[in-house]
C-alpha cells in the first residue's frame, strides 16, 4: 500500500484491532507511519461471510475517511537509546544486575531469561573474536532496518552469554538473516512461529565449542555454545532488526524454538559429505546456515534395518497438513517482490549418525534419501487443500485445474526432492529431528 501511496494513489487497509500497532510500525518502517487504517474488531480469518460483512459495515466510514480526508502523520515515536551507556546502581552488584535485567525487559530488549551485562570490558573482549572493526556494518536488518554493526552484534552476543569465538559465527548468521532470499521481513513479522534454525559446519564451529552430538539441541553443558549462539541470533533479531513481540513480531502462539535453536553438524560421524558441501562450499570451509522453521517432530526408529523402511517412517513426519508448509507449493511460492526473490518451501532433517550410516551402508546418499522421501511423502489433493485458499491455488497453478476432478490423487508435499535438507546431527541411537521449514535455507561463509 505504501508503494501505491508513493505512486499518488490514496489507500486504506482493513486491519484487526490486535494488529494496529503492527500495521503502524510496518508502515512507519517503510516511511509512511500515518497510512490510513479501517480498524475492525477481529481478524477476518476463520469467520463466516456474514460476520465479516458486519465488521466491514461498522468500519466503512473509516474507509471513506481514509480515502478522502488528509492523512494525519503521527508524532514521531520516541526512539530507544542507541549509543547510550546505561548505568544501574544497587546496594550490591547483584542488585544492580537485577535492576538492569528488569529495565531491559521493560524496554523489550530481553528474551525473558536473565541477560549477561554487556559491560564495556566484556564487549571489548567479545570484539577480540573478530578482525573486523566495531563500526563495520555487517548488514541492514529488517523489519526495522537496523544497522548491524559489529559492535552491536558483540553487545548482543555478550548478553546472550557467547564466548568471543562465536562472534564470527554470529556475523555469518546475521548475513544469512539479511540476505534478500531470506525474506526476513515476512518471517520476523508473521503471525506464525518462525524460529531461526542455525546449523554450523566446519572447523570454526568446532573451535567455538559448538556441539553436534549428544543432545545437540540442548539443554545442558554439552550444548552450551549452541544455546548461547542461538540466543544471540534471537537477541539480534530483536535489538538490531527491531523484531519485538507484539509490536513488530505478531506471532500469535510463540514457540520455545524461538529462544535458541543452533548446533553444528556431526561431520565426524557422518558417512556423507558435510551439509555445506551440498550447498557449494569447499569441504574444509566454515559456514553458517540459517533456515527458519515452524516446528519440530522427532524422527524415531529403533527397529528398521532397511533404508526403505526407515524412509517410510521419516516420510510420515512430512505429511502433517496442520503444518503450514505441507503442500504449500500448490498455492505459490514465498516471494519478496522488492528483491524479486522466490522461495520453495524446504524442510530440514537432522538424521542421527546411526540412521545415516544405515542409509550409507545400503548405498544411499542424501540424494537417494531425498528422492525416497519425495516419493513417499504424498497426500491426496483434497487433503493438502484442506487449509488452503482455492482461489490461491487457481491463481498459482491454472495449469493444474484438472486436479479438481481428481481430489484423491496423491501429490508430493514439497515441490521437489531437494526441498528436503539433510544434515547429520545427534548422538548414538536412532533419534533425529524433522523441522517443518519456512522457505529456503541461506548459507554464508564464516570469516574472521
Amino acid at each position, binding site marked *: 500500500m505504501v508503494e501505491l501511496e508513493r505512486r499518488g494513489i490514496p489507500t486504506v487497509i482493513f486491519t484487526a484491532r490486535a494488529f494496529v500497532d503492527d500495521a503502524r510500525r510496518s508502515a512507519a518502517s517503510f*516511511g509512511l507511519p500515518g497510512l490510513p487504517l479501517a480498524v475492525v474488531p477481529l481478524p477476518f480469518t476463520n469467520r463466516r461471510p456474514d460476520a465479516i460483512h458486519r465488521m466491514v459495515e461498522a468500519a466503512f466510514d473509516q474507509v471513506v475517511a481514509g480515502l478522502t480526508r488528509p492523512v494525519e502523520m503521527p508524532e514521531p515515536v520516541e526512539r530507544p537509546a542507541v549509543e547510550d551507556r546505561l548505568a544501574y546502581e544497587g546496594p550490591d552488584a547483584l542488585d544492580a544486575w537485577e535492576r538492569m535485567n528488569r529495565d531491559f525487559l521493560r524496554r523489550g530488549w530481553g528474551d525473558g531469561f536473565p541477560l549477561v551485562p554487556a559491560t564495556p570490558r566484556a564487549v571489548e573482549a567479545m570484539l577480540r573474536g573478530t578482525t573486523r572493526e566495531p563500526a563495520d556494518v555487517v548488514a541492514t536488518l529488517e523489519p526495522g532496518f537496523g544497522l548491524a554493526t559489529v559492535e552491536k552484534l558483540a553487545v548482543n552476543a555478550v548478553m546472550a552469554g557467547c564466548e568471543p569465538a562465536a562472534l564470527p559465527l554470529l556475523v555469518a548468521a546475521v548475513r544469512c538473516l539479511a540476505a534478500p532470499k531470506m525474506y526476513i521481513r515476512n518471517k520476523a513479522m508473521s503471525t506464525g512461529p518462525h524460529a531461526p534454525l542455525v546449523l554450523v559446519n566446519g572447523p570454526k564451529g568446532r573451535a567455538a565449542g559448538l556441539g553436534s552430538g549428544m543432545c545437540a539441541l540442548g539443554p545442558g553443558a554439552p550444548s552450551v555454545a549452541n544455546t548461547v549462539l542461538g540466543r544471540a541470533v534471537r537477541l539480534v533479531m530483536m535489538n538490531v532488526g527491531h523484531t519485538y513481540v507484539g509490536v513488530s513480531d505478531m506471532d500469535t502462539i510463540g514457540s520455545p524454538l524461538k529462544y535458541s535453536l543452533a548446533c553444528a553438524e556431526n561431520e565426524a560421524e557422518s558417512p556423507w559429505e558435510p551439509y555445506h558441501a551440498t550447498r557449494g562450499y569447499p569441504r574444509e570451509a566454515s559456514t553458517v546456515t540459517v533456515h527458519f522453521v515452524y516446528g519440530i517432530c522427532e524422527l524415531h526408529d529403533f527397529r528398521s534395518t532397511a533404508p526403505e523402511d526407515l524412509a517410510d517412517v521419516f516420510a510420515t513426519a512430512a505429511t502433517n497438513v496442520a503444518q503450514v508448509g505441507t503442500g504449500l507449493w500448490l498455492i505459490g511460492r514465498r516471494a519478496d517482490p522488492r528483491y524479486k526473490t522466490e522461495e520453495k518451501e524446504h524442510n530440514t532433517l537432522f538424521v542421527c549418525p546411526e540412521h545415516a550410516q544405515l542409509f550409507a551402508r545400503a548405498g544411499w546418499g542424501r540424494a537417494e534419501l531425498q528422492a525416497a522421501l519425495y516419493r513417499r511423502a504424498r497426500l491426496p489433493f483434497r487433503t493438502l487443500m484442506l487449509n488452503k485458499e482455492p482461489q490461491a491455488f487457481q491463481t498459482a497453478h491454472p495449469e493444474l485445474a484438472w486436479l479438481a476432478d481428481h481430489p484423491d490423487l496423491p501429490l508430493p508435499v514439497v515441490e521437489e526432492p531437494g526441498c528436503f535438507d539433510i544434515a547429520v546431527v545427534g548422538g548414538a541411537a536412532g533419534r533425529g529431528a524433522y523441522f517443518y521449514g519456512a522457505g529456503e535455507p541461506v548459507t554464508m561463509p564464516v570469516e574472521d
Partner: protein
Amino acid sequence: MASLTVLSPVARTVEHSVKPAPRLRSLEGATIGLYWNMKAGGDAALDRAEALLRERSPGARVRRYTGSVGWLMRHCTAEDADRIAAEVHAVIGTTND
C-alpha cells in the same frame, strides 16, 4: 552502592520517508481498486465493501486486484503497483490480519 554500566544493544535504524498521496474529494465517479492478498476472509470483506461503495457512491466503479507473486499472501510487484496506479483513483485493501 554498586554500579553497573552496560552498552545499549539497540541498533540505529535507517529511516525511510514517503509522502502520502493526495486524498480524493469524493468517491463519486472514482474508480476504486479492491486489493485482496488472498488471506482468508479478505475476499468476503471486499465483497461487502464493494456493495457499500455502490450504495453510497453509485457513480463509483471498482476493479479487483491481487498480487502476481506469493503464496499464503500474494504481493504486488512494482509492475503490479504501476498497473494499478494507472487504472484506479484509490485502493481499499485487505492486506493485514
